[in-house]
């Protein structure tokens, strides 16, 4: 009995302290496995590049009636202009060149295209998150909304976004709405759902005793929301925002794919594939991935700071 009680006391006391101590050390500990995996991926990628680009080199050589040594073959597979699979250093060089090699106003600048994608992503993310939070508040307060909205929200996510994105773009363009807004709408479409699901869960997270306390003080619905439901939902909110921002980026890029788009990372992807510019495709892909990682990291940092200040860090 005594032992059990000590253990509960200890376990209720430790997590925040452990979290405080552990954070700095964790970064060092997690770096090694991450780097190992990265190295393995790069090696595998080089091997794949050689294997996939070699037929074209042999073909060219055969046509010219030459023979190639293994050394020549290796070098040639990694220096093609339109390889089947560009080598990592080619993609890295293209990325570097796209970011630093030209003025940010240039049509080939990845900074410019990245910003266009980012701004639509952020707009869609803000829109989608706000919608998700508002709907979640409605759902936890109204049984009717719970029963009526949830099925539609789920249904909305089963529609293939690739199929309706062009329609949204075309329909909006026909009424004169172009540019950021149509893309942001598609992005909001994808990002509201994780926030909705996370917030419904989070707003219902407080335990019954905490609701009973509020009831005994005769707190009204708004006060329960503000003082209890909303603060307890924050860990869920941040977790779902991470998913939502990634979804928002995908939504924006999909919105940039339909014919006619000339700006944004999605447009770079598309034009790259028109002209067989595989290096351009891959560098746009990586730019998008880096953007996504940065955004997710940013939300994670805000979450850590906020939750730690609130004593909710774990």
């Amino acid at each position: 009995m005594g032992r059990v009680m000590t253990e509960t006391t200890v376990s209720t006391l430790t997590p925040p302290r452990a979290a405080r101590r552990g954070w700095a050390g964790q970064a060092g500990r997690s770096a090694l496995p991450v780097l190992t995996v990265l190295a393995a991926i790069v090696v595998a990628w080089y091997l794949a590049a050689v294997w996939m680009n070699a037929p074209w080199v042999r073909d060219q050589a055969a046509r010219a009636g030459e023979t190639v040594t293994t050394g020549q073959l290796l070098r040639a597979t990694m220096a093609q202009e339109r390889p089947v699979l560009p080598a990592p250093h080619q993609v890295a060089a293209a990325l570097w060149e796209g970011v630093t090699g030209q003025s940010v106003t240039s049509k080939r600048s990845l900074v410019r295209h990245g910003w266009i994608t980012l701004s639509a992503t952020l707009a869609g993310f803000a829109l989608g998150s706000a919608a998700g939070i508002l709907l979640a508040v409605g759902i936890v307060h109204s049984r009717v909304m719970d029963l009526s909205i949830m099925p539609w929200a789920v249904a909305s996510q089963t529609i293939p976004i690739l199929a309706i994105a062009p329609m949204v773009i075309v329909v909006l363009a026909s009424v004169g709405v172009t540019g950021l807004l149509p893309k942001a709408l598609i992005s909001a479409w994808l990002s509201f759902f994780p926030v909705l699901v996370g917030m419904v869960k989070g707003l219902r997270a407080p335990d019954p005793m905490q609701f009973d306390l509020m009831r005994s003080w005769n707190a009204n619905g708004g006060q329960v929301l503000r003082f209890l439901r909303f603060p307890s939902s924050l860990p869920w909110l941040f977790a779902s925002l991470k998913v939502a921002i990634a979804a928002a980026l995908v939504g924006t890029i999909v919105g940039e794919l339909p014919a006619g788009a000339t700006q944004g990372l999605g447009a770079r992807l598309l034009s790259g594939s028109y002209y067989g510019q595989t290096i351009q495709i891959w560098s746009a892909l990586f730019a998008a991935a880096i953007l996504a990682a940065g955004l997710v990291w940013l939300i994670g940092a805000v979450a850590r700071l906020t939750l730690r200040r609130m004593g909710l860090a774990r």
Partner: protein
Amino acid sequence: MMNRPEPALHLSQAPAAPVIEARGVSLTFPTADGPVHALKDVNLSIGQGEFVSFIGPSGCGKTTFLRTIAALERPTAGTLTVNGMTPDQARRARAYGYVFQAPGLYPWRTIAGNISLPLEIMGFDKADREARIARVLELVELGQFGSRYPWQLSGGMQQRASIARALAFDADILLMDEPFGALDEIVRDRLNEALLALWARTGRTIGFVTHSIPEAVYLSTRIVVMSPRPGRITDVIESPLPRERPLEIRDSKIFAELSHRVREGLRAGHGAGDD
């Protein structure tokens, strides 16, 4: 062996107008394993300024009865009035300060912030809030800990903070569910004294659940003994102790006699539950 009580028929001669009046209150929880009779035909009338303790084995419905008074549960039969109103009307009139069996502090608020919460909800202004927070923190001997977070406090300190939170606004009726269960004897003694002093000063009506016979005898004007399956009142013991109670009163003969009587009542209840 003395006057054996007729269970479920205790129209007591309360000294003042009844604040809480339970008549034939029953509460049955429907569960997967069939109905649980948490309360069965409970009759009790508690007067203004009384200190009533509830004692009985685990699962006899003490918490359930307190929750029913506070309108957190609804009786399935019988009537319950509080100040002549339904419990829910009394709740809306903010008649209750409730200390739950577990501290239930909000982890994202400091101790002072936790105590401040009901005050903010009830619309006390800032200066008043601060004065009240300081006063109740002092009362539960947590004066230094207002700016700490709950996880920085021990379980017993958290429990005291939750008591302070219930004392901060002036509820007429204090309902306390094993508030001192997690405390060491010395602090428990001091808080018992502090609670008695507060009760004498403010004249509030207090419903108090405890598993400790000495605590029940020391604090109460009346001790309600309950027994489980179904949860019911088996004995109501009036205390002849004066309202002014120094700690030494616990060494007196009359205290020992009262304790004995409560113990006998509990034994009888335990026996009855084993059918």
